[in-house]
């Protein structure tokens, strides 16, 4: 129960942060990604400032978390262990970048925007879930072929 409550509170704070920073508005994100706008004065630096704000808290916070023996409500801290800079990482980042650049939505803001009941947001989130399930199916099939 405490883990559920902690996750709910974390999700809430995350959502407040997205809303407060303006990052739920795809045009703000596209305004940052439009680097050619730097020359013409239309570039929107908001996303860079959001990243700076997030890292200014998360980096020292993670240092603190590393020093603790274990999380408050869990046996172990699930720090990522994969350090490989490999083809799936780069190919996945390219595919994600393609989709992100097309409409200016990444997973966090897309889900928070479900609150607006916008039909395009709902379509995006359903497609995103199908994309995730497709990768899962594809991975399972690949591992089956390798073991066969």
């Amino acid at each position, binding site marked *: 129960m405490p883990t559920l409550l902690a996750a709910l509170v974390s999700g809430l704070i995350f959502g407040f942060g997205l809303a407060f920073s*303006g990052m739920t508005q795809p045009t703000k994100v596209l305004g940052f990604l439009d680097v050619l706008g730097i020359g013409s004065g239309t570039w929107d630096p908001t996303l860079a400032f959001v990243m700076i704000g997030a890292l200014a808290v998360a980096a020292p916070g993670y240092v603190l978390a590393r020093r603790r023996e274990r999380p408050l409500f869990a046996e172990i801290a699930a720090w990522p262990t994969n350090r490989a800079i490999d083809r799936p990482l780069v190919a996945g980042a390219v595919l994600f970048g393609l989709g992100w650049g097309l409409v200016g939505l990444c997973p966090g803001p897309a889900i928070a925007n479900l609150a607006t009941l916008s039909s395009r947001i709902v379509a995006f989130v359903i497609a995103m879930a199908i994309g995730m399930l497709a990768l899962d199916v594809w991975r399972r099939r690949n591992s089956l072929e390798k073991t066969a």
Partner: protein
Amino acid sequence: MAPFDPISALVGGALIGLAAVLLMLLNGRIAGVSGILGEALTGDDRGWRMAFLIGLVAAPLLLGATGHPLPTPWMPSSFAMVVAAGLLVGFGTRLGGGCTSGHGVCGIARVSPRSITATLVFMATAMVVVAIMRHGFGG
């Protein structure tokens, strides 16, 4: 489009960072939204992931209830484009093991070379896409 406001951008970002730190200090988990959604769809241990996602949607609803609803997302793209983008984001973030939150915030905060690489690649790719969409090939 809303004008650039560095203070709310920094404060909003700090809240996102705080959410990530809390999830690690309390539950020992990384606040990567694509991973949380992907594992909620396909993996085990779905409870805390669903709770996080409910919080993510509830936050703007609470703001709306206090008279500050999210601005309607402005997406002029066709439905087909929106669906294509969603498929790419879903497949790509799971293949690459993270998105703007997992790699971009949590990964860079850990100074992970893997996450820094992913962030540079997806940002550069998205910048190229926007340059082509908005300015065409060669302007």
